[in-house]
């Protein structure tokens, strides 16, 4: 039901009180009006507007999408048994059925009119990440969309960065697109090719570079592109066994572009090699952790220095005082995960054959041959615009090239300018759906190819998909299914597997409120990144193995790396990187809801927030956005020093005293309170640490009662209740995937089709991939 609030949030949050004409519920049956009078108007009529909602003045103009959404919500509340409240007189099942049927009919009656009101062509701007992928797949060029002055971050809607209604194009975008296109064309068709070089940065003769947590060794990449970066050194675990994680940290983007746990011993160093696409800039080879800096910002106090390679690290226990951080404990063991690096080798930029193949035929070899120019431009424009082009579209580019040459420019410069122009065409940075001369309901094959490729690859279709579109294969279920299977097996599916769970579960919020270093000294950027990666790896595993959706909320396994295993107090996995780990029944974990990422993103920097946890779960897992709190709600105050210590749960219960607050919190809070055993960074706890107040830290209480009356004692029981509601989970998940794939918020007009997909592909044995397949092969996916 997120669809309802989605529309409301996007367009108008004030509809609840919108004074529609007093025509009331004209056209409704007498029985329905009697039902409303008997059960609804007392609280949602002239006298009272509980929840800021008034029913008696709600128009039946369901051609208005907002009105249709309102009626859909009325239907949902009645159908779900939420309204009338259980302490009021209850209507009979027949009465409810009659009212629900009539509302459904009304909503359906307006569907065609609502569709007709949509524009003839929909434009969905590419997100900046999609822009980067498209450029790479088009020309094999790495364009750094996050570089200063490139593109701004895209606005998010509930975590999604690809919602068409939000991705508008402002005049400032055009300038940036022009500048970006210039850079891209220049990089693809340089007059002088950038030579690939191999450079090695070494420690001084007889020395090794010691890097404690957060410390780094810098190198620079002048050009963006594909690089092979090799690092030689040792990774020494702390005395606790925690191992160091080496990361290639981009200094300006403030994030890691590659990394791995370094395991080599002091006497037996090892070599790590990373190959991939890297933007230009300064990179820090970092012992990935929170950087310890002095308050005045100038003095770094964790050790970053060259040490004698022949001197065992255990001997670095000095006999004199010093202002420097301790290296080893009294037994000569490193006090923290420590890196000893010998050298860093950078090789690149490397041009692969597949990258070069993308540029083949784009630049004509004979500058006097107009036919070749036209063909080259056509090939490029069709791939860039991801649709067939008509000759008249090419004419103006050819004319432009000729005019530029007449004005004295060289052919190469003029032609490059034409390519740039193609990349600043709206057909490039928009996904276009619809025709200006007809009001189509369904997508054509090229539009369908675009929808599919941006759904699964966040990028343009490849040649095979274009060919299938050209042949009309995508119009058939078999043809579409064949392409879907091929694309799901392509390495580029990684983009979906990384991007979708991040957006669906709002993982961008992890670390948004940096945990207080004094309360959580163990929290560091690598832990934060590991949290996100656990959830992404978990979803990837579910996708690859087509696991049933119930395992998203309840399972006996998870994906762990060494850092997270350490954080959870589990044994270190034997493999490096993320690996599937089977959980013991009493582990307290299993399913996304007990991932440290989710438990952190629903907390602030100092404490967990059960209400936010409940709201997040409702929104992300159940696709139902709870109503926002009323304004001017007093925040919870910290426990005073002279008062007994109290859990946040106890404070909340004392806080929500107004009947309005209680009714809402009764629905949201249990979803979050079930996870009271997890602190603000997702660690297990039995008591809640309260900084101020008298007495000992109080024990936590993870029990609760769901709005439907089912009770649970802890998170494990709660997860089982949730997992048992398979169809609800499937419907909610589908709604999220469809939002991602269709680049728009689901509306009341999509509900029926979502239900149909769930009915055909939402069985308990059906997995994530099956649900996605069900969506792609559905009518909904093909609708404009």
């Amino acid at each position, binding site marked *: 039901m997120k669809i309802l609030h989605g529309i409301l949030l996007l367009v108008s949050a004030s509809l609840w009180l919108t004074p529609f004409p007093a025509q009331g519920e004209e056209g409704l049956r007498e029985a329905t009006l009697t039902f409303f009078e008997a059960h609804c108007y007392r609280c949602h009529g002239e006298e009272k507007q509980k929840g800021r909602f008034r029913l008696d003045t709600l128009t039946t103009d369901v051609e208005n999408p907002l009105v249709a959404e309102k009626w859909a919500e009325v239907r949902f509340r009645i159908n779900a048994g939420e309204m009338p409240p259980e302490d009021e007189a209850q209507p009979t099942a027949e009465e409810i059925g009659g009212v629900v049927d009539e509302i459904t009919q009304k909503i359906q009656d307006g569907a065609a009119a609502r569709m007709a009101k949509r524009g003839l062509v929909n434009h969905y701007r590419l997100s900046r990440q999609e822009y980067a992928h498209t450029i790479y797949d088009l020309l094999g060029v790495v364009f750094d969309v996050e570089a200063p002055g490139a593109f701004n971050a895209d606005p998010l809607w509930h975590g999604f960065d690809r919602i068409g209604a939000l991705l508008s194009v402002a005049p400032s975008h055009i300038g940036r697109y022009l500048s970006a296109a210039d850079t891209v064309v220049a990089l693809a068709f340089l007059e002088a090719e950038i030579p690939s070089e191999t450079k090695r940065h070494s420690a001084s003769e007889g020395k090794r570079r010691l890097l404690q947590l957060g410390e780094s060794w810098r190198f620079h990449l002048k050009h963006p592109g594909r690089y092979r970066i090799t690092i030689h050194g040792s990774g020494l675990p702390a005395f606790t066994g925690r191992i160091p994680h080496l990361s290639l940290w981009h200094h300006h983007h403030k994030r890691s572009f590659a990394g791995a746990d370094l395991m080599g011993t002091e006497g037996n160093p090892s070599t790590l090699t990373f190959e991939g696409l890297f933007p230009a800039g300064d990179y820090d080879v970092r012992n990935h952790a929170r950087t310890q800096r002095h308050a005045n910002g100038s003095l770094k106090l964790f050790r970053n220095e060259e040490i004698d390679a022949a001197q065992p690290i255990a001997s670095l226990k000095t006999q004199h005082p010093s202002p420097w951080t301790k290296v080893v404990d009294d037994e000569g063991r490193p006090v923290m995960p420590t890196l000893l690096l010998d050298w860093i080798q950078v090789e690149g930029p490397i041009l692969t054959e597949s990258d070069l193949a993308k540029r083949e035929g784009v630049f004509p070899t004979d500058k006097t041959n107009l036919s070749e120019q036209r063909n080259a431009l056509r090939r490029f424009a069709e791939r860039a615009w991801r649709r067939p082009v008509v000759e008249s579209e090419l004419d103006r580019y050819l004319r432009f090239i000729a005019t530029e040459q007449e004005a004295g420019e060289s052919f190469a410069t003029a032609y490059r300018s034409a390519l740039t122009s193609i990349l600043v065409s709206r057909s490039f940075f928009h996904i276009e759906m619809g025709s200006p001369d007809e009001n189509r309901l369904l997508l054509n094959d090229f539009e369908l190819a675009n929808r599919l490729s941006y759904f699964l690859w966040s990028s343009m279709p490849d040649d095979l998909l274009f060919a299938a579109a050209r042949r009309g294969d995508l119009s058939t279920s078999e043809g579409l299914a064949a392409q879907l299977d091929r694309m799901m097996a392509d390495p580029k599916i990684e983009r979906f597997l990384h991007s979708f769970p991040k957006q669906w579960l709002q993982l961008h919020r992890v670390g948004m409120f940096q945990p207080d270093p004094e309360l959580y*000294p163990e929290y560091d950027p690598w832990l934060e990144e590991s949290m996100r990666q656990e959830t992404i790896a978990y979803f990837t595993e579910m996708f690859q193995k087509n696991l049933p959706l119930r395992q998203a909320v309840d399972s006996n396994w998870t994906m762990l790396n060494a850092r997270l295993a350490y954080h959870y107090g589990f044994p270190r996995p034997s493999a490096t990187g993320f690996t599937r780990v089977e959980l013991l029944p009493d582990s307290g974990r299993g399913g996304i809801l007990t991932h440290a990422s989710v438990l952190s993103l629903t907390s602030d920097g100092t404490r967990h927030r059960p209400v936010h946890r409940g709201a997040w779960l409702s929104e992300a897992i159940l696709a139902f956005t709870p109503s926002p709190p009323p304004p001017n709600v007093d925040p919870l105050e910290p426990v005073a020093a002279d008062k007994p210590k109290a859990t946040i749960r106890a404070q909340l219960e004392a806080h929500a005293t107004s009947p309005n607050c209680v009714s809402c919190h009764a629905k949201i809070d249990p979803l979050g309170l079930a996870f009271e055993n997890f602190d603000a960074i997702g660690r297990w706890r039995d008591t809640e640490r309260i900084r101020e107040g008298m007495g000992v830290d109080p024990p936590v209480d993870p029990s609760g009662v769901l709005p439907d009356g089912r009770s649970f004692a802890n998170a494990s029981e709660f997860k089982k209740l949730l997992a048992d509601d398979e169809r609800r989970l499937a419907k909610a998940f589908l709604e999220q995937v469809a939002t991602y794939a269709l680049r728009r918020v689901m509306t009341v007009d999509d509900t029926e089709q979502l239900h149909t997909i769930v009915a055909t592909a939402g069985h308990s044995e059906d997995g994530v991939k099956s649900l996605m397949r069900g969506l792609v092969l559905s009518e909904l996916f093909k609708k404009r």
Partner: protein
Amino acid sequence: MIRATHLSVLGLFAVISVASAADDAKSEALRDHIPKPGVFPPAGAGIHWNGDLVMSDPMNRRGPLRKSQHAPRLYFAMLPYGMVSYHGAPADVRDIPLGTHLHGRFLLPIKGEEETIPLTEKQLKQSPSLRHSHAILLEDDVSFHQRQGRSWKVLGFEQGGGPAPRLKLSVEPIGPEIEGGLNKPTLFDIDDAARVWQKRSLVAKEAIKPDQEVQMNLTWGPFDSLAITDIWLDNESLTACREIQRQRHLRLIRSRFLPGWVDAVKNTDTGGGEVTVTLFGGMDPTLYEELSTTPHPKICDAATTLRTWSYHQEYSVRGETLQVETLENPPLGSSGIQMRLQIPQMLEGFRTGRIVRLKGPWTYVLLPADEWLASPEVFEQARRMRLP
């Protein structure tokens, strides 16, 4: 019967002899107690010594005492927990004017610090007690006597004769007999260089009257006599001087921080952990109160000289006070206050038995550069006292 009695007497004699020998051994062990890092010495350890401070190395808290005209100098270093009193208030070596007659309690060097005061074989042969070169307590006369409930009663002036006639003040002790003190009526030289304190003023020596109860500070005088440098005729005057010294002490420690040593360390693998520190004694109670009630003290490494590293304030680590415990009747050298801190960064010197300094809620101060331990070389140089 006679035989039995005789045997009993012999037996008793033997017991007393053994006990006496045991007492002597115990006394000798106490005298020659070797202090260990992290452990305060037992009560009564070491020897008493007194003499004039003839040189001073205030940075490293060292100097020599001269007992008499021909006696060898006792070169000493303060133990890290060594305490100094001047004018009855907490002090540092730097507060004591050269020439001040001092009393002190001196122990053998702390383990590992044997080379701090380099003594030749010849010196040690001539005066074995020079080995007791590490002071746990250093006091001027007024502090020494007043602490032990002693004062002086003025008997009157006497004009001395002989080849060097000098005016003398005749006094007799009031209070208990004390080790190292003058426990009988005495004559001290007095002349117009003596500061005579009454109320909050300096007055002429004629204000000194018989039967007055006074306190004095002394210095070496001709022919190994002792001369008066300061005499306090009333409590008010002494209180005023004590307060001035107390304020100097507060100023010093608030900028150099309270010293202590590390009792326990709990490293965490994030580079921080917990450090438990016992604060050294002899400081003004205000400082302990200020430090132990601050939620976020800072802590830095220090040497046994209590010198700190470079910009000690900047290189200090901000901690969080987890626990403060106070010990009843702490040993000499200890404040009895133990603090447990959580810190985000474990410095090299945060190891059991090492010295640290803790900053309370005090204003930002930069130290003179020559006080810093600027490098390992400076640290090494400072480890040994350079004798003239």
